């Protein structure tokens, strides 16, 4: 009997996992990344427009900045695109793109079509660096302070509400940096 019930038990475990997974789907987007409060990993990645000129995360030390994970394949990235435009206009800090699991030609085409609002883009075509960064899916937006510490992470497309939230948080980081 025990042996016969095993599949049922396994199934119940699976269902429990999926229920928890789904109920926390929204929440997990808010759940603090393990990297939160830690320094951003030191990454050296090619730039999208100038592949030979590598960009490093530590060269941004000294001022707060925004790292936005996107890909041309990502539907939600199109949804949040207008807010990226607003963010780079109004935030007063560099908004750096992190082009994830993409192809150069696709990414460039996408930018030409929708507009390139980012300061520059670091590319991670294979998705290796994204693992170090704890990227869960695109789009994702990291706020990094002037000491290189990840202070906030927003998962999912930026909307009106999260845009306002990000602006407030960026303001705080700017104040900290100027003290």
């Amino acid at each position, binding site marked *: 009997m025990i042996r016969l019930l095993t599949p049922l038990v396994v199934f119940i475990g*699976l269902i429990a996992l*999926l229920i928890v997974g789904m109920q926390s*789907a929204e929440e*997990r987007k808010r759940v603090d990344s393990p990297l939160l409060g830690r320094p951003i990993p030191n990454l050296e990645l090619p730039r999208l427009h100038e592949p030979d000129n590598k960009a490093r995360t530590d060269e941004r030390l000294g001022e707060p900045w925004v790292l936005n994970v996107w890909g041309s394949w990502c539907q939600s990235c199109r949804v949040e695109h207008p807010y990226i435009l607003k963010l780079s206009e109004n935030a007063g800090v560099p908004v750096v793109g992190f082009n994830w699991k993409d192809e150069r030609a696709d990414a460039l085409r996408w930018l030409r079509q929708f507009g390139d609002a980012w300061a520059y883009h670091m590319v991670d075509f294979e998705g290796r660096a994204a693992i170090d960064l704890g*990227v869960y*899916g695109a789009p994702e937006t990291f706020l990094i302070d002037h000491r290189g510490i990840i202070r906030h992470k927003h998962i999912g497309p930026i909307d009106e509400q999260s845009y306002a939230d990000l602006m407030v948080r960026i303001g705080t980081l700017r104040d900290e940096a100027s003290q």
Partner: protein
Amino acid sequence: MIAELGQVFLSLALILSLVLATVPLYGAHQNKPELMRMAHTLVIGHFVFALAAYLALTAAFLNHDFTVAYVATNSNLLLPWFYRVSAVWGGHEGSLLLWILMLAGWMVLVSVFSKNLPRAFVARVLSVMGMIAVGFLLFTLLTSNPFDRLLPGPLDGQDLNPLLQDPGMIFHPPLLYMGYVGFAVAFGFAIAGLLGGRVESQWVKWSRPWTLMAWAFLTVGIALGSWWAYYELGWGGWWFWDPVENASFIPWLIGTALIHSQAVTEKRGAFPAWTVLLAIAAFSMSLLGTFLVRSGVLTSVHAFANDPERGMFILGFMVVVTGGALLLYALRAPRIMTGKGFDFMSKETMLLLNNVFFAVSAAMVLLGTLYPLVIDLMGWGQISVGPPYFGAMFILLMTPVVMLMPLGPFSRWGQDNLWRVMFPMLATLAGALLAALVIVAWLDAWSWRAVTGWMGGLWLIAGSAHFLFDRHRSSRFGVPRHQLGMALAHAGVGVFVIGVAMVESATYERDVRLEPGQTVEVAGLAFTLDEVVSVKGPNWIAEEARFSVRRDGALIEKMTPQKRRYHQSGQTMTQVALRPGLFQDLYVAMGEQMDEQTNAWSMRIHIKPFIRWIWGGALMLAIGATLAASDKRYRLARKQQAAAVDVNAAPSRP
């Protein structure tokens, strides 16, 4: 008006399915033939209303009725009529309606082709399928109604996702659903087998052709999806281990195990409980796939608009269907027959090994798909599981499968001797390995993957040919279809393996900047960009590059890749130019305009060797399964059953 009619039809289908789910089942329990007989009429009625609802939605699309919210989001005035017809299943709500229609269709087929089976059994099968129909109809009506109105309606719709405006996409979802839903038949048979109070030994035999057909549809559906991704997404890849691809692959792997374990259970009565479990698992994994795509629990490029409410409903439905089935299994499995024992070296062991490897593969894919979720929930961080994990795992698990597969058909039931099986095959094996080396040398494609791929592939093809030759010689009546089908399918695996090995090891890729008039040489072929022009389609405009491809100065092909811009959504799509070939595909995709003055563009030119063999192999699998399903032994079996002959007494050799 027509939308309201559709709504009414769906509600009527729901009422009929409710009756179907209960009355014939009760009739079978109480042994009341008049109640059991109702099943056939109910199934027909259910199908008619499901079809009417489906046609109502199709009519709304054809008439541009943008007051129907679903039409407004998935169509537009410029969309050609054939895409308006296929747009019915282009979104979540309509694809559910298609699912319902197919389930209704399978039920009619089961009802029509099971006239010779015991009435109580058929009544139970149809009732179980009716329960599944109830679940899907409720799901559609309560959470995802395709007939919801949008008043006032917009003047024009938002257009069908351009990715779906493609012939491959017209057929990919219906075939995939035919497979998913087809496993509902195997599920229904297994549950009916469990429900049958007395020892039912024959349902396995009756369910075999249905399982084979469902598996064949699923195979073609997955292959079409892969083919579509290859030419439409412009990445040149054919499989991405995306969660949603995995969601269709898991039922396929379990289905593969199921069709093999059914053979053992039917012929020898061995591991019956395992076969029941696989039938439950195959359909449950189809439901899980539906859940993963529509609940937002995992991130994927395929996901439909996510909605936790829908996710909860499917989960609840899974709890009822799978949970109920597994509970019934725990209660009833001890009562189903147990078969004869077998030796370590026997056909049973070979098929058991097949089951172990495929079930483990399915578990590994499921694990890899859900692992990021588990890790995240446990608070251990966030990770993504990618192709390296799946690729390594598959090579590990499928290598023994490829090595043993040709031996399986030669081994005997009950007891055998490895040497007896292996000895006649030695020449075939040696020939296959030698031929592999010669071919690789001739193609000059020396790499571990190419060499092992050709060796494994040719071993499978030669082993299948050897099997057919043997059977042809020793049988006076010709090779029966189920053996022909099996050999064809096994050879198809060989073709597939060769395709994968060649594509993964010998693809030639080149990204170049080209101005009109310039020529680039790739692997002995000269690609000349003649001109770049603008062209216009029904709902898009495009830049089109015109290439002439020459070998030794002789023109072999004109190729015209495009970059399309769709009016309504503003989305840009890369239309790849392909020259398909049995041994290599030429693949040209347009990149970016690099210079307006000279009209220079970046172009991606690929030469993909043997990529057609991947889908060719899949097609052989599907044809093989169809051949096996059409074998007359299944039809004879029904007549025998009508005369109540005990199949256990039948000879055990095929």
